[in-house]
């Protein structure tokens, strides 16, 4: 599963997700965090932790976050 971190992370960058990720696959960018699609093991540990519900599966990205799909992908290329 690939996860997208969307708009709510910007300006928040709470890092609770980073603090529970068992495989350190959540990386810090300039203005938000990103989940490495190949390193993620789909455990969902961040689900109850993210205070702003910024993380969604890439199959379920709300239309207003469309641009974040490319932005997340671009972080790891």
């Amino acid at each position: 599963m690939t996860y997208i971190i969307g708009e709510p992370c910007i300006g928040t960058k709470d890092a609770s997700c980073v603090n529970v990720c068992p495989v350190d696959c959540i990386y810090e960018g300039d203005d938000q965090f990103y989940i490495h699609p190949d390193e993620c093991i789909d455990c969902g540990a961040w689900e109850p932790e993210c205070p702003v519900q910024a993380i969604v599966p890439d199959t379920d990205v709300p239309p207003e976050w469309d641009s974040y799909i490319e932005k997340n992908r671009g972080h790891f290329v």
Partner: protein
Amino acid sequence: MSVIRPVLEGAIGDIADTRTVTDTLGRSLRDLRVSVTDRCNFRCTYCMPKEVFGRGYQFLPQERLLTFEEITRLARIFITHGVQKVRITGGEPLLRRDIERLIEMLVALDGLQDLSLTTNGSLLAKKAAGLKKAGLRRVTVSLDSLDNAVFKAMNDVDFPVEGVLEGIEAARAAALSPIKINMVVKRGVNDGDVLPMARHFHGTGCILRFIEYMDVGTTNGWGLEDVVPAGEIVRRVDGELPLEPLGPNYRGEVARRYRYRDGGGEIGVIASVTQPFCGSCTRARLTAEGQLYTCLFAATGHNLRDLLREGRPDEEISTAVRDIWSGRSDRYSEIRTSQTALRPKVEMSHVGG
């Protein structure tokens, strides 16, 4: 040596002579299984089926999990009541961030003789060396089939068997030994893998253990017809790779042990359905949120987390543990029927198998 010790240390010293706690059936307390998370990255059909543990399922938030400090404090108290062995379970315990730190804390406890961990193996390739370095002695890896199609159907998340085999190899390279491999045998699903598994691990030093399919939790739809009796498993293996029985390593060992007559190592069968071992069960189980269960098949536990978080002293928690164990009378596997299988029971992902 200073006579002034922290209050908590002093309290433990004072209760150290209570080691002989036994339950109403005369069973001692020797093993503590600690679940460190209710999460798993697999959805094995007999444990965390997708229909129940799907995307909307509410797992425990971090603040409801026992902290490593809380777990270590409880383990120290349990040791004063006779616990010698601690096993870390889940969910999948390697999904608990910084689990290595908990291992360091537990191995430092006086009186602990054995520390092990049960894992689905999916993260072992990454983590085995770090676990060993933290002080873990050995691991048990759950693996139900070597057939990729069967394994993927059982874990239900498309995880390939090679990933687990790499994890086992990493555990071997890290000298996390002896490595035990646990295979739950379900008739018509993976009983065809009994012999391939035996052949695969024969001569490797890994101890393969066949587990009768049990009515754990409330979601797996267990029936006696799903069980391949341990006797049948032993006969099947013995037919190709001759076996001879071994005595138990210690009283209360759940696996009946056999060794290959050709020197190819050892296997075990865990026959909790056809040959229940409640009479020698010395295990307590602690869930990730601090509920103490005295039976894998119990419906309710005893809340130790509240005692911890209400700031109760060690003596009080120790008394609670002693009282819970002294009052224990469960022997579920000895009274199991198709009717009891329908009773409400704690989910295995909470109580750690």
